[in-house]
């Protein structure tokens, strides 16, 4: 209930004119460029993992030649958007929650209110925009890196024919799947940002340092769980005829 009220206020602030530019640029850079090293590392391993595990599973019923299909479907439709979102929650969301919670417990948010500045406009709106716009880009980036890693692992380590692999990927992954991935990215990005901002914003002065820890923890866990659950519903919506 409290959360819905927060969402309403945040939406009003978000769509009430463009966000403060400097704040937006700072958070967009931090969310986008700042996540690249971690995301790259993780998608490379997740992509290779996908190949190795799928191979290990398929080889048992002699389907190792279908690796391309599996990596295309599993990776691009499901794994990479969710992974980008979960990592986004663990890194960007946690940072957002921690910084807002810190501002709350040191009364900086109240100071803004007293100075007749709407903290929603100044603090929350640019963060929401930044993450919502950056996460789809990160998803797209993860698609490319992850697929390349799967390809490398499949051809170099499993000895799957590279041409067949790519042909299968091209067969099974349509433009619609990529668009769905980007759409998921937008939804997850907004969700991660709003959940993290909410938990950060809810910290109270009397909680002290503990409040920052609690906000960070909740931001990470709730945004990860929400994204994974929502992904199931989105997939059911998009792919069950």
């Amino acid at each position, binding site marked *: 209930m409290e959360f819905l009220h927060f969402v309403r206020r945040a939406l009003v602030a978000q769509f009430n004119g463009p966000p403060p530019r400097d704040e937006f640029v700072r958070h967009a850079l931090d969310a986008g460029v700042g996540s690249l090293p971690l995301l790259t590392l993780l998608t490379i391993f997740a992509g290779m993992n996908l190949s190795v595990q799928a191979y290990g599973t398929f080889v048992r019923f002699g389907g190792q030649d279908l690796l391309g299909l599996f990596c295309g479907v599993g990776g691009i439709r499901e794994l990479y958007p969710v992974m980008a979102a979960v990592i986004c929650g663990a890194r960007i969301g946690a940072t957002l929650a921690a910084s807002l919670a810190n501002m709350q417990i040191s009364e900086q948010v109240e100071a803004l209110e007293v100075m007749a500045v*709407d903290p929603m406009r100044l603090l929350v709106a640019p963060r929401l925009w930044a993450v919502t716009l950056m996460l789809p880009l990160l998803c797209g980036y993860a698609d490319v890196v992850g697929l390349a890693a799967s390809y490398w692992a499949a051809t170099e380590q499993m000895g799957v024919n590279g041409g067949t692999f790519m042909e299968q990927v091209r067969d099974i992954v349509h433009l619609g799947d990529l668009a769905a991935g980007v759409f998921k990215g937008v939804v997850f990005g907004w969700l991660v940002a709003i959940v993290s901002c909410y938990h950060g914003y809810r910290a109270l002065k009397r909680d002290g340092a503990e409040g920052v820890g609690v906000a960070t923890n909740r931001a990470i866990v709730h945004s990860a769980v929400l994204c994974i659950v929502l992904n199931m519903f989105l997939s059911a919506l998009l792919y069950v005829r």
Partner: protein
Amino acid sequence: MAEQQPAITLEKVCKSFGPNRVLHEVSLTLPAGKIMVMLGPSGTGKSVLLRCLVGLMKPDSGRIFIEGQDITGLDERRSAGREQMFALRRKFGMLFQDGALFDDMCVGDNVAFPLRQHAKLSEREIAARVAEDLERVGLKNAQRKMPAELSGGMRKRVAFARAIALRPKIVLCDEPSSGLDPVMSATLDELILDLHRTLGMTFVVISHDTAEARKIADYVGLLYKGELQAFGLKDEVLRSNQRAINQFFERSTEGPIQVL
């Protein structure tokens, strides 16, 4: 100027958190241009009172007038009410307990922040005002420092400069002397007096430091268990011989105020 509105009027303000009665029927009138020191043991609702004045909290009942305008009826959930509340808050400057400086801005930007948000001034005028205010608080050379590099006293002085940057009519100070050494808190007292003389602002100071009250106050109030035990001109209150006042000013454990 003869019929000037009182800066702050409270009428039977009550506030509770659950079963906890924090303010009970607090009524007072503070004329414009005066310094009021609100005394009281810790945890008796002084900060809540301050937050009610700027609309950060809403009293459960009773009314609060700022320069004659009733602020208790403003509904912050509606945009019109919020606009009015924000317009009203521009009359206020507030010094928070630990300064509440923005960690990611340097000292100069912190002081310039309210000016950039609300005053229609050019960057050059803003820079001039920032320099002027920082000099006033004796921190002319700290403009490029970050809040994390400052000592507690310096943070408070920067917060002071930020609170007065817009030349508000009313300045609220939440425990300006807590956590400071005696010399630094005396410096802050001098600063309040100096600002009061030169800019004629109304001050509401929350404190438990009786020496501070003796030094700067025009009006003194004593809040205990959510009730206003005494309020009035400093000399009258001190002469009135009320037991709570005497106990507080004599630092005695004997009397109506029981903390154990």
